[in-house]
């Protein structure tokens, strides 16, 4: 009980510090130390946020970004786990294919955007392809790694039980690789958000990326900050949700240890 109280006290103090930073920001804006063209006060950003939501503009843009991110990320997750499982469960694929993938890993994925534009134009399909392509790497490599790191005795058990390859993948390898896979999916979530914003900026697709760019072009700094705050919030909420999902899904492993 007592320890709980101190934890809450620290939290409250920490929130107070954050609040004082916002107050400082307000002060700087009020004193016009930085031109209001670039830096709106938190009051103006908040007003813009409320106005944007009440007339539905900002809500639509947020939904657009979330949609791009979710479709791309889900496609990447399904394809990444499937391809990773195929490569990870086969020794031949691991020697011949995995090194090429490791070689491609340090490639800045955004460099694929011009190629995707050349193939698919400035379209929704281009955005989905880019997001999925960028988000697939961490998931696929984590799956391969997770499959390679499965306790060898589990494979031996599976063999002595004469399980089929599919059964081995679903009953042995996937569950035991799930911490790696989920960690890869969490990394991919950030990648998906960043690439969604970049694609929206480039292709003018409905979303927060497009919104912040238009606001910047028109020097509507309050709208711009409202968009950036929403993007930060999106990053935060999705990562918290992913942690919670990870916690839930891996509870059985924690219990086992």
């Amino acid at each position, binding site marked *: 009980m007592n320890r709980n109280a101190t934890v809450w006290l620290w939290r409250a103090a920490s929130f107070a*510090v954050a609040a004082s930073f916002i107050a400082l920001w307000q002060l700087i804006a009020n004193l016009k130390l930085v031109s209001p063209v670039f830096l709106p006060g938190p009051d103006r950003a908040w007003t813009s946020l409320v106005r944007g939501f009440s007339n539905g503009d900002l809500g639509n843009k947020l939904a657009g970004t979330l949609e791009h991110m979710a479709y791309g990320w889900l496609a990447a997750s399904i394809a990444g786990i499937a391809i990773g499982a195929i490569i990870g469960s086969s020794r031949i694929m691991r020697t011949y294919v995995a090194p090429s993938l490791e070689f491609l890993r340090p490639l800045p994925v955004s460099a694929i955007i*011009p190629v995707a534009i*050349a193939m698919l134009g400035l379209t929704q399909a281009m955005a989905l392809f880019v997001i999925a392509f960028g988000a697939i790497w961490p998931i696929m490599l984590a799956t391969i790694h997770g499959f390679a790191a499965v306790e060898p005795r589990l494979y031996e058990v599976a063999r002595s039980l004469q399980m089929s390859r599919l059964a081995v993948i679903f009953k042995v390898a996937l569950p035991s690789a799930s911490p790696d896979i989920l960690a890869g999916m969490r990394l991919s979530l950030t990648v998906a958000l960043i690439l969604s914003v970049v694609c929206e900026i*480039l292709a003018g697709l409905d979303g927060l990326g497009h919104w912040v760019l238009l606001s910047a072009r028109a020097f509507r700094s309050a709208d711009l900050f409202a*968009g950036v705050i929403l993007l930060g919030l999106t990053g935060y909420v999705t990562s918290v949700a992913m942690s919670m999902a990870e916690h839930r899904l891996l509870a059985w492993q924690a219990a086992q240890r």
Partner: protein
Amino acid sequence: MTTDRAKEKAKALLLPLAVLLAFEAWARATHLQSDSLAPPSEIIMALAGAFADFSILTATRDTLFSAFAGLAIGTVIGLALGIAFGISDTLNRLMEVTVEAVRPIPSIALLPIALIALGFGYRMEIVIVAFACVWPILILSRAAVRSIEPRLMEVSRALRLPAAQRVWKIIIPAALPRIFVAFRLSAGIALIVAVTVEIAINPLGLGAGIMLAQQALRPDLMLAYLVWIGAIGYALNILLVVAQHRLFGRAALSGDSA
């Protein structure tokens, strides 16, 4: 042993070589006319051409300059905050909400802000790269400082070292292997963010080069840029991994899991 490793390497090269040859053969057989694809031989010619007129070298210099300048600034800020938060638990707890509120902002979302505040050019790119690099350095150096052997800290207290010397003589050397791991991660991020900013909006460097090649409907040049960007990313990674092993040997491996 060495022949075994050579054999492994040869096996690893087999697939990319086969893919390239097949693609070349297919492109020749069908007399490929495309705005988005070009056979490997043409890509190599385009790359050679871009080297010959120095355009790709200038672009590389611009990109690497922005990436490294941003990385340097981000590292200094991240390290200062990370060490401060690592030493002082009070400070760390007080700043927790602020850090957690700012950290999830995707670096690229700052692009429009940097654009209206600083305009096109090196400065806005450097600021965005620096913002992206601060966080991994901050988080990992904070963890590194916290995991320093407590007896080392006791020694520094017994010696009554002033704070600056304690940081310089005890904390930084003890945490350096893990800090270098963070630096390696951030260097990769710096290159990615720099290229991304250039592709999205900033008219300089490799990212702008590849966009220009796409808009000029030069798939050979576009793919040449892509290959070159990949090669730079790969070389940077190898360089830093080798440096890490040379400088810290096994000591650095313990930090890799963090």
